[in-house]
């Protein structure tokens, strides 16, 4: 089972009285692209945020590369891990946010080299070489010295992808990466993501872009009201969904 990158088991999470995750179990294999779809409020974003412990869970367990994330086993209980260990685990999990969250006081290049230099201790000139290559790969070779405020949403999101990739993550998380974008720039971000998927990056993608799910996903997972209600290949999903709620959701969105 060495090729399991992400293993989630019975993840529960409540915000106050509202139970958003009611027992999510999911396994993602190396090189796989898994798209999580579902209506808003279904818990997709909360779940993906649990995977790098930006959100604490109430029960269940999540492992990335066989390592328990965010918690330590103490007897038969899980206790929250130290900040140092959590930070170290996050270095191998890249995350791309809906609202980009680029550092506005740093140029595109500085955004990308920040964590490799200050977290991993990569020598600066080496980090610059890597960052320049990554920015070239997302089509922004001419924007290395530009501040995020001067970039379009699509360009900002591509910098954010390069920033996450610069850490050399074994798993990439995309949290509605195109939802905050203008329609005309969604394509440029999706094509970068498709290339990553095709290159064998292990990705978990929360998205409303069914075209992307159909084209790039190995597996599609449908969430509703805090549960995974259907799971399968894109072909299965878009041609013969079984679940009534999946059918209803897809008919609304397609």
């Amino acid at each position: 089972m060495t090729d399991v990158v992400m293993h989630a088991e019975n993840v529960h999470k409540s915000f106050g009285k509202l139970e958003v995750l009611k027992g999510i179990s999911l396994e993602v294999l190396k090189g796989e692209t898994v798209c999580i779809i579902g209506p808003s409020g279904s818990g997709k974003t909360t779940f993906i945020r649990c995977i790098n412990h930006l959100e604490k869970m109430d029960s269940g367990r999540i492992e990335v590369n066989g390592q328990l994330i965010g918690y330590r086993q103490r007897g038969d209980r899980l206790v929250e891990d130290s900040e140092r260990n959590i930070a170290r685990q996050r270095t191998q999990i890249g995350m791309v946010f809906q609202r980009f969250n680029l550092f506005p006081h740093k140029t595109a290049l500085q955004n990308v080299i920040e964590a490799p230099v200050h977290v991993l201790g990569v020598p600066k000139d080496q980090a610059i070489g890597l960052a320049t290559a990554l920015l070239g790969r997302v089509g922004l070779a001419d924007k290395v010295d530009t501040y995020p405020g001067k970039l379009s949403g699509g360009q900002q999101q591509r910098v954010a992808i390069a920033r996450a990739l610069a850490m050399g993550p074994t798993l990439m998380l995309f949290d509605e990466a195109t939802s905050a974008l203008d329609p005309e720039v969604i394509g440029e971000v999706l094509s970068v993501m498709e290339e990553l998927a095709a290159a064998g990056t292990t990705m978990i993608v929360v998205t409303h872009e069914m075209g992307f799910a159909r084209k790039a996903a190995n597996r599609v997972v449908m969430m509703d009201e805090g549960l995974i209600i259907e799971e399968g290949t894109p072909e299965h999903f878009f041609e013969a969904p079984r679940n009534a709620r999946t059918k209803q959701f897809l008919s609304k969105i397609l």
Partner: protein
Amino acid sequence: MHVLVAADWHVIWQRIFHPGNVFARALWATVYISVVSQVLGVALGLVAALMRMSSIPPLRWISGIYVWIFRGTPLLVQIFFIYTTFNTPSFHFGSLWSIPAEATTGILALSINEGAYMREIIRAGIDSIDRGQMEAAKSLGMRYGLAMRRIILPQAARVIVPPLGNEFNNMMKNTALIYTIGVYELFNDADQNYSAALKSEYFVAVAFWYLMLTTVWTFIQAYIERRLAVSERGEELSFRERLQAAWNPTAAWFGSGRR
């Protein structure tokens, strides 16, 4: 008008254009006490702000009580309390600069008081930064301290610096209060001259010197703020525009009626 006509202009002229060595020492004392107290005040305020945002309740309480007490009582009372309670050391840096014990007391009191005000300013600055910035930093494997230092505080600085500049303006004027515990600074110098000659012109002259200090600071502040201006957000103001804003009469009227 009668008073002004009868003023001894010679005294004022002498104090402004021919300040002696003793006066220079007093001016220097006011300057270094202001700067040191402000720097320590910012450091204290930062610690208190981080404590206030801590997940550990007792740290939050301590920070809250600190601000409650030191913003809620007169600075002069705090100065006397610290003067009569603590024995502070003197400091000597070679033959050029030494800080006498009573000046250390003054610095201690001023910086503790300042820290309480700075806490609120720093906290507001940190709060103004989008939560996503901390999340992005964490998702890249940064720990809290590193994320604060590299990501959050540099952005918060732009929000913190303008009110910090006003704090320093207040600080320079508030140093006059520590004359009461025997620190030889500008106001003390003026008062001693007054006592010898019983001429109130000495107070006019010292007011001029305070005005010089705060005016020079206005220029320095405008320069610093321009350096920090958010060029990437297109919010850059020119040096002249910042000075105009600083000297805007309505801003002077409504902007800082705090103490």
